[in-house]
């Protein structure tokens, strides 16, 4: 312990006793809050909301794939399906956790939303590169755009459902919350595409399927920004 440390501790510890708040200000705050104070029901536990979001993403992704036809999963081998679905389930759970954390102030955050999107893209691209072959770009855009569109379309009900589950939350940082919710909704789109899309060419799934996650996240963040600037 150096002399500088002693002095620093003394200064900071001495400053720990806060100044009294001006009584008029305190009265103003009390007058704004206390009259008509009503009981409120605390939001459900974070665990319950995370579980709800995971079930929602799974249900939306699987229901949409049933609707469009389960051609993709039928063409994949057992190992390919297991690796891809396990990755989607894992990142779906992390994204659900992240979304709930962004709606409850002071909740522990496992990973930053931007970093999560990057990790999801990186891992999915890695798994697809190992699982599939084929880097020919014939009809690359013509086949890819419908997949991207369908994935984003499926993300919409997933995002709306997530909002219903989380609407009683309070986002201290709405843009981050939108980014997290968009990422989660995008996972429903990816799940549907993996179950449905019969095109198992590596370059196709690595670009058009994975792109659903960052685009859906971006849409979530932009929506949140629009609502915040209006409200």
């Amino acid at each position: 312990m150096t002399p500088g440390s002693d002095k620093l501790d003394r200064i900071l510890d001495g400053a720990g006793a806060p100044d009294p708040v001006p009584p008029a200000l305190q009265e103003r705050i009390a007058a704004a809050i206390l009259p008509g104070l009503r009981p409120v029901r605390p939001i459900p536990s974070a665990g319950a909301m995370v579980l709800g979001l995971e079930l929602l993403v799974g249900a939306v992704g699987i229901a949409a794939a049933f609707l469009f036809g389960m051609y993709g999963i039928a063409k994949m081998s057992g190992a390919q399906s297991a690796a891809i679905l396990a990755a989607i389930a894992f990142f779906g759970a992390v994204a659900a956790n992240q979304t709930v954390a962004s709606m409850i102030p002071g909740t522990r955050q496992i990973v930053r939303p931007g970093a999560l999107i990057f990790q999801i893209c990186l891992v999915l691209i890695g798994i697809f590169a190992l699982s599939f072959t084929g880097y020919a770009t014939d009809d690359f855009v013509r086949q890819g755009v419908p997949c991207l569109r369908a994935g984003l379309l499926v993300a919409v009900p997933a995002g709306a459902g997530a909002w219903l589950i989380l609407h009683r939350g309070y986002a201290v940082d709405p843009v981050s919350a939108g980014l997290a919710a968009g990422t989660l909704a995008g996972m429903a789109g990816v799940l549907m595409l993996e179950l449905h899309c019969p095109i198992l060419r590596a370059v196709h799934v690595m670009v058009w399927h994975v792109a659903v996650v960052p685009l859906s996240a971006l849409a979530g963040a932009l929506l949140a920004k629009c609502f915040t600037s209006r409200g």
Partner: protein
Amino acid sequence: MQPDPDLEHLMAAYQKGDTAAAAALIERVSPQLHRFFLWQMTSRKDADDLLQDTWMRIHQARHTHRPGEPVLPWLYAIARHVRVDHYRKTRRRASREQQLSALPEAPSPAGGRPGSGPDVEALLAELPESQREVISMLKVAGMSLEEVARATRSSVGSVKQKAHRAYEKLRTRLRDDARV
């Protein structure tokens, strides 16, 4: 992390609509929050406004505190965001008025703060905003590293690193002052 049972009790009663508990919570936490804003180099008038705004948001979001969870990270997460919002609005206004020199970093923190100690604000003014925030949560609110990490939505490691760097800077500054 050791949650404050009194604060948790007051918060739970506040959620149940207990006016006395709400009044006690306001009285108990407001001085800490007020000092938190003052340590972020805002003027006293701005600190008053921020405190009032923070309580409005706390009131609006009171149902999002889960019984059994620590109260301080929840409160400070809201307070912190009120300050960030205020900073952004001030910056936008300032850039619109082309008065860039009047950004919130600039106001002198020293004037008119009775009892806050002569050296603290001058010392803290040397620190980047994120380090100042961590130091004020640790020292004014007496929060643990884990609680600060929750309030700032970062990891315990990142909070430790910021606190360590802040202490190093402040020690160096004090040593330099002692030599002069």
